[in-house]
């Protein structure tokens, strides 16, 4: 697919934000967006894991699955790769940076089952990205996801100080906010289209 890496990256962050246009990775997005601090932690973890697993899955897909004609195994293999990578990252961080481990530690296992991570790997295949494009797309989507959760956490912190009718409290209002945010991001979509 002929698309410049930079455009792809920016599009993944803003116009085709994985969370706000594809609504992937909603569960952790809704549950960890109560405070800005923890949402930054999760955001960084998602960004890191997304970028690395996209690269790894690219290699696994094109060098193992395609030559052996086993493309239909991609779902299960991608998930295994993501899970193993998260485990490994956890051990490395624990060994070398206890401080980072304790601030990210609880979020890393959550990410294993974050569908946005798998989604990015699958989009990469469907849209026939090259390796460089895939990495840019992965990194961009990670930053885009972080941007979205940070925005929601900021709004929720403010809303929490205000009166909210009982029926709207919690997930209901969060979903309405997300919808309005999605509309806002759609406004940018004329700039670059990647899907």
């Amino acid at each position: 697919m002929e698309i410049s890496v930079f455009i792809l990256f920016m599009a993944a962050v803003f116009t085709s934000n994985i969370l706000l246009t594809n609504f992937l990775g909603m569960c952790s997005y809704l549950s960890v967006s109560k405070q800005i601090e923890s949402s930054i932690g999760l955001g960084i973890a998602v960004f890191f894991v997304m970028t690395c697993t996209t690269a790894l899955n690219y290699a696994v897909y094109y060098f193992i699955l395609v030559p052996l004609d086993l493309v239909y195994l991609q779902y299960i293999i991608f998930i295994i790769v993501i899970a193993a990578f998260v485990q490994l990252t956890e051990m490395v961080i624990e060994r070398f940076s206890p401080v980072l481990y304790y601030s990210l530690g609880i979020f890393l296992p959550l990410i294993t089952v974050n569908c946005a991570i798998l989604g990015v790997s699958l989009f990469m295949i469907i849209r026939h990205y090259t390796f460089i494009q895939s990495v840019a797309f992965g990194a961009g989507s990670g930053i885009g996801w972080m941007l979205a959760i940070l925005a929601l956490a900021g709004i929720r912190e403010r809303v929490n100080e205000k009166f909210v009718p009982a029926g709207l409290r919690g997930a209901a209002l969060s979903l309405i906010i997300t919808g309005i945010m999605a509309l806002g991001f759609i406004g940018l979509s004329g700039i670059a289209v990647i899907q």
Partner: protein
Amino acid sequence: MILSILVTIGIAAGIGGFLALLLVIAESTLANYGECKITINGKKELRVKGGSSLLTLLNNNKIFLSSACGGRGSCGFCKCKVLEGGGPLLPTETPFLDEEEKKNNVRLACQVKVKQDIKIEIPEDIFAVQEFTGKVTKIRDLTYDIKEMSIELTTPKKIDFKAGQYVQFVAPRYEKSRQPVTRAYSISSSPEKKNTIQLIIKKVPEGLCTTYIHEYLKEGDTVFFTGPFGDFIIKDTQNDMLFAAGGSGKAPIKSMLEFLNTHSSKRRMVYFFGARTKKDLYLTDLFEKLENELKNFVYVPILSQTEENSGWKGKTGYIMPYLKEYVKDAAHTEAYLCGSPGMIDAVKKELLELKISDDNIFYDSFS
């Protein structure tokens, strides 16, 4: 056909196996910290397998630092000084440490992972802490939501503690809790009785440990606890003593008063007990008996909510306004407070205004 199925299974298993192997290698290299040495107070040395938390490793070696949450980093009890090899201070610890503790290298033992040789300092009396097994001999209702439990010790058969100290009771796995929970309860019986201890336990709604004791534990059951812990103990002086408690805060003070009674103390003492209504009062007979036996002791129950026709002739409202009636010589008065953090703060503030020195106010906060 068969061949392609086999190839598929082989590849999927191969990739999975390769990743698993990678993790196993990582586990044995990255997560393997070898044998580490824990040096305690510069004299005792322990050789342990690294990688676990300091609290767990000390527990495995029969050194029981106090911990009410079981190592989750939510109670902040397991403080100890880590002089060397503890790594940087973690964000999970900072909420529990004040500036001075941070400067003195105080850490939470449950958060410090032993990854290299480490030097720590703990109070000497921690070595006296033991693991006990006992049999519940009696459970009786003190009020509608407070029970008194008597435990006869089986191994070891004897406990040495000071009046006011507490033990950590372990509730095993049961219907409402998938893992054992540990909670701290003050000993309410006198330290003179070394073979049996009593605990006073108020039911906390949804509380994992108190629900277990109130609804599941039966007489004759075997229970486990560690102890004794705590520095909420009687200071050996001849000063006046002012006790104040609320709710189940009676336990350590009952122990203290019974201890003072067996030693026929001549110290001037008062005990303010704050409760909501008449049905929240308990062990009144016992304290009236102590009033008769101890010459200089008065028991003052105070109710904050009195219904009409309840027949209550005693004091009403909160404890605070009544304190000044008792304090005669502020410089020679010690205060022992026990109850919820809110009650302790309020009483402490009032005592400081009555010019009682901060050094003479001791408390045990039940949160």
